[in-house]
């Protein structure tokens, strides 16, 4: 009899937990993007901004839903510490802040200057945030980025994610997930870097001539009664992902331009796609566009007579994208010549990048790590002053580029009969 009693009590015990940790989806504030800023003058210097999805804005079926316009809503909070600011931001929402679907963490320039430590600690410690989030740096205030609106995507976080995915194909930025950045940062002989997300006027409006031309045209359309709003909207700023923020000892040390970022990717052997133009070897004054398809780099440390130097051997493959002249460039000799020209141009980019990095004393390529792996004793001797060693490091860059294809044309079609 007591057996049944025990069984019964054991079964009841299961129910005593109630519905612990149960929360309905419609009570969740699904945070999709998190921005961290530091405002040096403010009394509560940390500013955390959350971009939260608004499910009510997503149309469901043909009847209900579709109310409201914006797919995301921004909430922010300030505090004397990062966590307090985050708490205040979360508490300003009418729903339960839910971070497991957060995909992007933005860090403002000022905050980055104070170091990544606090941000990384928060991301690693908080169970809802994941190390697969992208960590990006925003020049200026990160909060402002979240106020922008998506151009193709209804929700801004979706737009950012799309940009990040595309950015990998241009080789002009190197967006990384937090665990990659962590790995770089904790590795001896290597520094971390972040991709840069910036808010800027669209390229066409950046040119003064076009901007001047557009202004009256816009007003003309308005006067014509096209049904537009009464005010002239300020030129919309667009998001772009390009360039790299370089860190030294977890502090922001400087920036690499988009081209320099490509140089870095070439050095590190992680180049993806890219385009460059070189002068036409047969027709002076005209140029040929070449594409980079894939590439690989091999970095070898050399220690000769106590003098440390590195050899970077880069091998690239690519194709011809377009040419301006009518010359036949598809002969083996010409292709080789083009290859050499391409190698020269890219070598220049790599050298330039290296010089900038050496100025910043930030070894984000990881020369130190390679030395440590190849020759631990040699690295150990230099470990304490690696940044200075890196500054004066001699690096021999050898680039080999092959042009494999010429597109659908072997030689161009002259439009004017000769």
């Amino acid at each position, binding site marked *: *009899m007591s057996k*049944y*009693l025990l069984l*019964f009590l054991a079964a009841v015990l*299961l*129910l005593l*937990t*109630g*519905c*612990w*940790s*149960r*929360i*309905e*989806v*419609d009570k*969740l504030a*699904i945070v*999709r993007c998190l921005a961290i800023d530091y405002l040096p003058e403010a009394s509560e210097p940390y500013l955390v901004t959350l971009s939260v*999805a608004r*499910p*009510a*804005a*997503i*149309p*469901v*079926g043909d*009847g*209900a*839903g579709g109310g409201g316009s914006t797919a995301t809503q921004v909430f922010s909070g300030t505090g004397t510490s990062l966590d307090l600011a985050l708490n205040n931001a979360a508490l300003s929402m009418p729903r339960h802040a*839910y971070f*497991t*679907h957060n*995909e992007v963490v933005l860090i403002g320039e000022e905050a980055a200057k104070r170091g990544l430590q606090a941000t990384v600690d928060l991301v690693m410690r908080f169970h*809802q945030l994941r190390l697969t989030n992208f960590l990006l740096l925003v020049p200026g205030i990160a909060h402002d980025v979240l106020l922008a609106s998506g151009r193709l995507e209804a929700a801004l976080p979706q737009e950012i994610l799309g940009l990040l995915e595309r950015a990998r194909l241009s080789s002009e930025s190197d967006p990384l997930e937090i665990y990659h950045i962590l790995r770089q940062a904790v590795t001896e002989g290597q520094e971390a870097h972040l991709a840069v997300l910036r808010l800027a006027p669209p390229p066409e409006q950046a040119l003064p001539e076009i901007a001047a031309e557009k202004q009256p045209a816009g007003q003309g359309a308005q006067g014509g009664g096209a049904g537009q709003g009464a005010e002239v909207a300020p030129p919309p700023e667009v998001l772009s992902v390009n360039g790299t923020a370089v860190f030294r000892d977890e502090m922001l040390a400087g920036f690499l331009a988009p081209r320099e970022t490509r140089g870095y990717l070439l050095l590190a052997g992680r180049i993806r796609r890219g385009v460059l133009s070189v002068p036409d070897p047969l027709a002076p004054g005209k140029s040929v566009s070449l594409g980079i398809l894939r590439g690989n780099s091999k970095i070898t440390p050399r220690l000769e007579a106590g003098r440390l130097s590195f050899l970077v051997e880069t091998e690239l493959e690519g194709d011809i994208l377009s040419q301006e002249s009518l010359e036949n460039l598809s002969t083996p000799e010409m292709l080789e010549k083009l290859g050499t020209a391409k190698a020269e141009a890219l070598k220049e980019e790599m050298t330039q990048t290296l010089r900038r990095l050496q100025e910043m004393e930030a070894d984000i390529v990881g020369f130190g790590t390679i030395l440590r792996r190849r020759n631990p004793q040699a690295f150990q001797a230099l470990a304490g002053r690696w940044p200075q060693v890196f500054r004066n490091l001699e690096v021999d860059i050898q680039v080999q580029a092959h042009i494999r294809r010429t597109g659908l044309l072997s030689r161009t079609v002259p439009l004017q009969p000769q």
Partner: protein
Amino acid sequence: MNAFSAIVKKLIKLLPAAGNAKGPEKPLQNNRNSRAEDRRPDSSDLDRRLELVRERLGESGDLVTRVFTSGNGRVRLALLYIDGMVDRKLLSDNVLRPIQDDNPLLRHYKELRPNNALTLIEALVTNVSETATAPDLTQALRRVLSGDTALLVDGEERILILGTRFWAMRAVTEPETESAVRGPREGFTETLRVNTSLLRRRIRHEKLRLETMRIGRRTGTDIILAYIADLVNPRVLAEARQRIAAIDTDAILESGYIEEFIEDSPWSVFPQIEHTERVDKAAAAILEGRLVIMTDNTPIALIVPTFFFQFLQAAEDYYERFFIGIALRMLRLFVMNVALILPAAYVAVITFHQEMLPTPLLLSIAAAREGVPVPAVAEALLMEATFEVLREAGVRLPKTVGQAVSIVGGLVVGDAAIRAGLVSPSMVIIVATTAISTFAIPAFSASISLRLLRFPLIFLAGMMGLYGVIIGLLAILIHLASLQSFGVPYLTPLAHGTARDALKTFARPPWSLATWRPKVLDTPDRRRQAGNMRYRPKPPEERELTHEETGDKDAGKR
């Protein structure tokens, strides 16, 4: 605490398992060979006997007693039968007329006397094909109540029984609950004799046994154990015989009564005995070494022993190409899991584990749930219950009205509920998918068990999330593993038996490779057929060459 444990004790006493063990032994004997009835008054005098019959059967309108005299006027006889259950034309043409015939040249006209009447009539006079002799009135009456005719002779102790059963019966039709695209269209009917003939026609083997038993004190229902003597496992056969013989109840109106009396664990929600309406399915079971229990007055036959995974198999698996058989079995396994788990898993994930969903999916679910007034658990239970109501309403209604129910219930109510924001569209999708999945399980009895278990699982999911679902599933699995059907573990052949048999859970083998019967059934003769006998083309030297091979260019022109 004392009061509480007293209440628990009381509750436990109410539990049938505990109560049954100490229940009084049943004093009632099976009435088949009951001696008490043998000693009931009987008489060889015709009038006294008819009086006794009237005493025992009462004044029933359908009881016919026809007293007549033989053609030579020496013997008084009486026919006793139940109107509507006998072939009256057969009776009048082949019994009444020859006995009453007063042609003096006939041998029986000359010889018929009360003392030899019975044997002479049986041997010479009637042309009824089936006759028997009953020693007393009790036994004769039992035959009469089954549709036979008793011929009483004045002054004769024994009674001649004439097989004249004939009644209106339903024709052999396509089984409605188990239709198949390919395969025989014949299903069992309510008449046991017709059913046995359907079986015999499929298995023309001398070892096919159709063992008859009679149970039901008041209904006296015929039960037939069908098996092949050298295939069935003797232990299972003995067990089945014993369990059926132990049934002592008033009435057996359907095989479901027997199923509940003989199954191993009547307190389980899972059916432990498969039933079928299909003759081919019953025949296949018999040929596999199983036992088929047929019951009079119902087209549903029982198959023992049963494994759980049999409920996921259909006769058609073996008729279509085996690739299809494989695909369908996999599909049904999947569908079974969907039917059982899907709503619970959905509730668990959207109320506890939102991080497990891809972001776009979570957002659309969140958008769908926006403004739904009830929590997801309640929503799921409500929708599932509504669906069960709709299904139940549809089953009992005539077909013409049924359509209206499905339109009003499914379309109007469903659509309106979503538009009114009472339920979320995603929940409707989940419930509808689950509903369709339950219908994809071939056996209704198994699918209704799963359907029942869905509710506690949803409840657990709403309370404890996936943790609760896993607890529920483990409980179900432990229970399944503890079940047996006639001494064979219920989860055979997956949890017990050979790998070859286990594989059949997922795939039905091509016939050319199905050489052995299931090992777990432990049949005396395990081999089903010759070894691998797939067709193979003859080697070239043994076969007539085609014109291409002989190089005969004119072959086509001749």
